[in-house]
C-alpha cells in the first residue's frame, strides 16, 4: 500500500492507495511548519482506512514549496554563479537577464573563467589555475557557500565543471555545489539558470525534506519516502536535498497523472477548473504532453520541460456580465464565499448562474431570483462555448476526445461539449495531485549532441541511454525494470548532415529495498 501526499501552498492532500483503489483521502490546510499539515492529513487517512503504519510500503510526496519559494522570493540562500566558457560569452555574465528583485533576494556574485568545450569535443580553452585561485579567494572573502557551476557544452563533457568544483571544495569543504550538467539539456544560459535556482534553494531543501521525514516519523511511518519530479517520476527524498529544482513542475504533472490513474484513460484532455482559471492539459499515452517553449520560473528562463497547459480565465468565481454574454477573466477568487450573490454579496459569478439554473444547491437561492432567464441561459451557453473552443484547440486531432474534469469548479459543466466524446468526472478528483504522486515511477534522462559520422547512430544512442540509466539508478530505480520510453533525435541544422541531438528517457520501478536515507548527500552533489 502507498500513501500519496500533495503539499501545496494552501492545501495538503493525502491518499492511501491499494493498487488502483483509493482507500481513503483527505484535504487539510498546509501549516506554516509544513509538519503539522502533513500529520493532520495522515491522521485522517490512517484513521478512515483503518490501515496500520506497518502496511504502508512507500510514501510519495508532491510539493510546490520550492516553486513558491522562488516566485515569492523567500528562503533563498546567498549564491555564487560560476561560468566556464571564456573567451566566448565575454560581456554576457550569469544572471544578466534575471529580474532585479530576484537577483537582490539571492545576494549573488558571479564569476567567469576560461575553459569548456566545443560541440565536437575540441577544447574551447584551458582552465587557468591562477584565475580559479583568484575566484576562490574572493569566495572565501564573501563567505558564500552555495555555488552553481556551468561550463560550455557540459552535457557533452562535464570535466571542467567537476574540476573547478573539486578545487572549490578543497578550499571551502562545506560548500554546496550544483553542477549544471546534472540538468542535462543543451542551452548554456538556461541550464546555468536551473543550476543557480537549485543552488539557492539548497538550505531550504534541507529544511523541507527534514520536515517531511520528521512528520512521517512522528506517525511511525518508516518506509522509503519519495518526492515527485517535473516529468511525473520520483526521486528519493534525500536526493531532493541536492536537487530541489527538479520539483518545479510537479504540481500540474501530478494533477494530469492523477486524472489518468482515476480514469485509466491514456489519451484524453484534462480540464482542472478552479476558482479563477480552467487549466487545460493533454494526456498522451498516460503522460502529460510537454510544452516546447522556454519555461520561466519566477521570471527566469530555464531548460525544464513542463506540461503544455492552456489556462483560461474561467472558474467558479469568474465574474459574469449582466446579460450573460461574457465571463471572466476577472474573478472574485477565494472571496467567492462573501462576494458571490448566493453568499449575500453583490457580484454575479458563474457559481450564481449554476445555482440559478437549478443544477446545484449552494448558498441562499432566494438571493438570485431576480436573474433573468435569458441571462442564465446566455451565461451557460457562453461558459460551454469557452470551454469547447479551448478544448478543441488543445486536442491533438480533429476528432472528439474524452475529457476528464477535475477540480472544484467541475460542477460548472452541466451540458455536453461538442469537442468531447465523453465527459468523465472521477471520484476523488479533488485529490488528483496526491494520487498522481502516489503512482509515480522512477526515471532518468540524458541529452547529448553527437555526430553520426564519428559515432555510429546505434553506439551513440546506447551511450546516451547508459547515462540516463545511471541517473535513474542513482535516483532509486531497480535496474532490472528500467525501460526506454522516449528517444528523441533532433538533427542540427547548418552543421554536417550527421550532427544530431539525442535525448533518451528511461522509466522503471522503485527499488523495493532502498532505504529512505540510503543516498549520501555528497555523492549526489559532485
Amino acid at each position: 500500500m502507498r500513501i500519496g501526499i500533495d503539499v501545496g501552498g494552501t492545501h495538503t492532500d493525502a491518499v492511501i492507495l491499494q493498487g488502483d483503489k483509493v482507500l481513503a483521502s483527505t484535504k487539510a490546510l498546509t501549516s506554516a511548519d509544513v509538519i503539522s499539515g502533513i500529520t493532520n492529513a495522515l491522521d485522517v487517512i490512517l484513521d478512515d482506512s483503518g490501515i496500520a503504519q506497518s502496511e504502508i510500503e512507500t510514501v510519495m510526496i508532491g510539493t510546490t514549496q520550492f516553486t513558491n519559494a522562488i516566485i515569492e522570493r523567500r528562503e533563498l540562500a546567498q549564491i555564487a554563479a560560476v561560468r566556464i566558457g571564456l573567451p566566448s560569452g565575454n560581456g554576457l555574465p550569469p544572471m544578466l537577464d534575471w529580474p532585479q528583485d530576484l537577483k537582490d533576494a539571492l545576494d549573488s556574485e558571479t564569476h567567469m573563467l576560461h575553459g569548456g568545450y566545443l560541440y565536437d569535443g575540441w577544447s574551447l580553452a584551458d582552465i587557468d589555475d591562477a584565475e580559479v585561485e583568484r575566484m576562490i579567494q574572493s569566495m572565501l572573502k564573501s563567505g558564500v557557500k552555495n555555488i552553481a557551476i556551468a561550463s560550455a557544452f557540459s552535457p557533452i563533457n562535464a570535466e571542467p565543471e567537476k574540476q573547478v568544483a573539486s578545487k572549490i571544495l578543497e578550499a571551502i569543504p562545506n560548500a554546496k555545489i550544483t553542477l549544471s550538467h546534472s540538468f542535462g539539456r543543451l542551452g548554456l544560459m538556461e541550464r546555468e539558470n536551473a543550476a543557480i535556482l537549485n543552488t539557492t534553494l539548497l538550505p531550504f531543501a534541507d529544511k523541507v525534506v527534514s520536515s517531511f521525514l520528521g512528520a512521517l516519523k512522528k506517525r511511525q511511518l518508516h518506509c522509503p519516502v519519495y518526492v515527485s519530479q517535473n516529468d511525473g517520476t520520483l526521486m528519493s527524498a534525500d536526493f531532493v536535498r541536492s536537487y530541489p529544482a527538479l520539483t518545479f513542475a510537479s504540481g500540474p504533472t501530478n494533477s494530469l497523472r492523477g486524472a489518468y490513474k482515476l480514469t485509466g484513460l491514456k489519451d484524453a484532455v484534462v480540464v482542472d477548473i478552479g476558482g479563477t482559471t480552467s487549466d487545460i492539459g493533454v494526456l498522451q499515452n498516460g503522460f502529460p504532453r510537454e510544452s516546447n517553449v522556454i519555461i520561466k520560473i519566477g521570471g527566469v528562463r530555464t531548460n525544464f520541460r513542463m506540461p503544455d497547459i492552456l489556462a483560461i480565465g474561467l472558474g467558479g468565481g469568474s465574474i459574469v456580465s449582466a446579460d450573460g454574454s461574457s465571463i471572466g477573466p476577472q474573478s472574485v477568487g477565494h472571496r467567492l464565499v462573501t462576494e458571490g450573490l448566493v453568499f449575500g454579496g453583490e457580484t454575479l459569478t458563474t457559481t450564481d448562474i449554476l445555482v440559478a439554473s437549478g443544477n446545484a444547491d449552494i448558498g441562499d437561492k432566494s438571493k438570485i431570483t431576480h436573474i433573468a432567464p435569458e441571462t442564465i441561459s446566455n451565461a451557460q451557453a457562453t461558459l460551454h462555448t469557452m470551454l469547447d473552443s479551448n478544448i478543441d484547440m488543445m486536442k491533438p486531432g480533429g476528432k472528439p476526445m474524452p475529457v476528464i474534469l477535475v477540480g472544484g469548479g467541475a460542477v460548472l459543466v452541466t451540458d455536453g461539449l461538442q469537442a468531447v466524446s465523453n465527459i468523465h468526472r472521477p471520484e476523488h478528483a479533488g485529490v488528483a495531485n496526491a494520487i498522481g504522486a502516489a503512482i509515480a515511477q522512477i526515471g532518468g534522462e540524458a541529452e547529448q549532441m553527437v555526430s553520426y559520422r564519428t559515432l555510429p547512430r546505434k553506439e551513440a544512442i546506447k551511450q546516451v541511454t547508459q547515462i540516463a540509466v545511471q541517473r535513474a539508478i542513482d535516483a532509486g530505480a531497480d535496474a532490472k525494470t528500467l525501460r526506454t520510453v522516449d528517444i528523441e533525435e533532433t538533427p542540427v541544422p547548418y552543421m554536417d548532415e550527421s550532427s544530431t541531438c539525442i535525448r533518451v528517457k528511461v522509466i522503471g520501478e522503485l527499488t523495493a529495498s532502498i532505504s529512505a536515507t540510503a543516498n549520501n548527500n555528497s555523492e549526489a552533489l559532485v
Partner: protein
Amino acid sequence: MKIELKHLEDLALGSVFLATGGGGDPYVPRLITEQAVKQFGPVEIIQPDDVSDDAYVVAIGAVGAPTVSLELLPSIDEAANTLRAFEQQVGRQIDAVASFEIGGGNSLIPIAAAAGRGIPVIDGDGMGRALPEAQMMSYAIAGVKPTPAVALDYDGNITAFSTKTTEVYERHIRSLAIAAGGMITTAEHPMSGLELKRSIIPGTLSFSIKLGQTLRENRGSARDMLEPLQTLFSDSIYGECRLIFAGKITDKATRIVGGYDIGEAVIEAFSSDEKPLKVSIKNEYLLARQGDKVVASVPDLIVIVDYETSAPINAERLRYGQRVAVFAVGCPDFYRSENALKVVAPRCFGFDIDYVPLEQI
C-alpha cells in the same frame, strides 16, 4: 534617428516574424547587442539614400548553427573586432555597416558592431526576410562580390576569403563555421555607397522595430492582429498581408540534408471541413499549399504564429499539436525582378511550380 536600448526588444520580435521560420532565435544576439549599446551608446541609423556614393560599406553578421550559439555564446566585442580585422585586411576604414539578413539574430549583430566601432548602421538589409544561401542576397543578385571578406571565431582567430564566385564563398564559409566551433562572425560584401543604393532592401531595420512594436502592443489572437498588420505592411515595401489559415499542427517531419532542415508541416483547420494547409520547409517556410492549390510561395513571406498570442514560431520550435495561424506577406519588388527570381523562385528550392505573386493568387 538613433537605435537605443528600448528599440532592441521590438527589433528582435519583428525580426522573428520576418525570418519566416528561419534565422535562429534572436534572444542571445539581442542580449549581446543590449550590452554593446549599454557600453558604447546608441547607434545612429542612416537611410541608404543619405549615404554618399563613395562611402565604404560592409555587410556583417553571424554564420553557423544557431543551436551551437546556445552554448558557444557571443562576446561583446566580437562583431566590432570583425570589422577591425576587415579594415586591417583591406587597409581601408569602413564608413557604415549593413545587415545581410533582417530575419532573425542577424538583424541585431550589425548594431553591436556599429556600437563597438562607433560608426552608423544602414536602415536596410540584403534579404528583407531570411533566406538560406548567400547567392540569394540582394547584394549578390545586384552583382556585389562577397569578397574580400573576413571571418572571426570565438577566440579571435581571423580567416580572410578571396573567392571567385558567391557559391564557392558560401561553401567555404560554411566549412569554416563547422571547423571553428559552429559559429563565426563575418564582414563581407564590401561595397560603395552607390552599389549599396541599388542592391539593398531599404528601410527594413526601422520597419522591423515598428513590426515588433505592433506585435507587442496588439498581442492577442491572430484574427485580431490581422488589421494592425495590414495597416503596417500596406504602407511599406512589402504591401499585401493576408491571414491564410488557422488551425492545429497535425504533422511535422523534417530531416537534415546538406546542412538544411528540410520537411513539411501539415495544419488542420479548427473547424475540420476545410482542406488542411501544407507548409514546405527548407530552414524557412517556403511554400503553402491546400490540396494542389498554391496559397503562397517564396520569395513572398510565409509566417507561422501562435494562434492565441500571434508570436511568430521558428521552424525548429514548430511541433505537433500547436495551435497556429499562418500569414502571407508580399515580398519587396526587388525579389520579383527576373534577375532575383533566377535564384529565389520556387524552382530554386526544388518545387516544380512557377512563382505567382501573392496579390495574384
